[in-house]
């Protein structure tokens, strides 16, 4: 009986706080994505040739996000029947966008407006006792190109 009460309490806590945290996070992500729109992240390996002379600096951003108890429970249920785990999709989406934003933040700090060769790396860092994914880390990194004063070749 106590087990069931504990489980329901954990699920309810996970549902309410997890949902609140996610909504708040999405709101801040969308707002900051607007703010950092002028810092362009490009996945090309090298910049187009014959352009202005730049200095290159490695920039990176990372975030560790944990999934809440309710979503983990849902994912456990889902793994019985198979299919999309929507609960985890939003977790990964949030983590990637946040990591990219932090990278852009660092790029702006060094005075760059373009970041080339973006790489995204995802790792699950802590596993719980039953072997499920507890939290994930996403790292985004790339090379920021900073225009050198007086280095314009055109």
């Amino acid at each position, binding site marked *: 009986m106590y087990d069931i009460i504990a489980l329901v309490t954990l699920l309810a806590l996970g549902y309410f706080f997890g949902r609140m945290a996610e909504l708040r996070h999405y709101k801040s992500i969308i707002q900051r994505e607007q703010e950092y729109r002028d810092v362009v992240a490009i996945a090309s*390996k090298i910049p187009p040739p014959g*352009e202005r002379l730049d200095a*290159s600096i490695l920039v990176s951003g990372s975030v*560790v996000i944990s999934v809440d108890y309710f979503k983990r429970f849902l994912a456990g249920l889902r793994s019985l029947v198979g299919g999309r785990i929507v609960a985890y999709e939003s977790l990964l989406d949030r983590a990637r966008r946040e990591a990219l934003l932090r990278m852009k933040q660092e790029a702006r700090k060094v005075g760059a407006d373009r970041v080339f060769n973006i*790489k995204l790396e995802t790792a699950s*860092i*802590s596993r719980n006792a039953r072997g499920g994914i507890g939290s994930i880390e996403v790292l985004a990194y790339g090379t920021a190109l900073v225009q050198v004063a007086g280095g314009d070749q055109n």
Partner: protein
Amino acid sequence: MVISNMEIIPGKRIRLHLGLVQGSTVRTKHFGRDLMASLKNIFGGELKGYTELLQEAREEAVRRMQEQAKAAGANAVINVRFSTSSVTQGAAELFAYGTAVVLE
């Protein structure tokens, strides 16, 4: 020292390749952070302690890579890659590697 994950450095010519350099560090979290993390496992959200820990560890790995490059006489490391692997429960290895070069 120039650190870049591109294969070239725009506007500079590579004079000499000195081969692969690498740096790694294995870190584990301490008890306080672990406690916070297990709470966050119920509520969800960002684990700030872990983010900081991994960021510090990655900087350390890059520093070690840089030292190795410096010892080889390089003035830049290009094509840098990061990789993370969990070695045991609660410990992670942060690894950085790249090609040491001499720029003109």
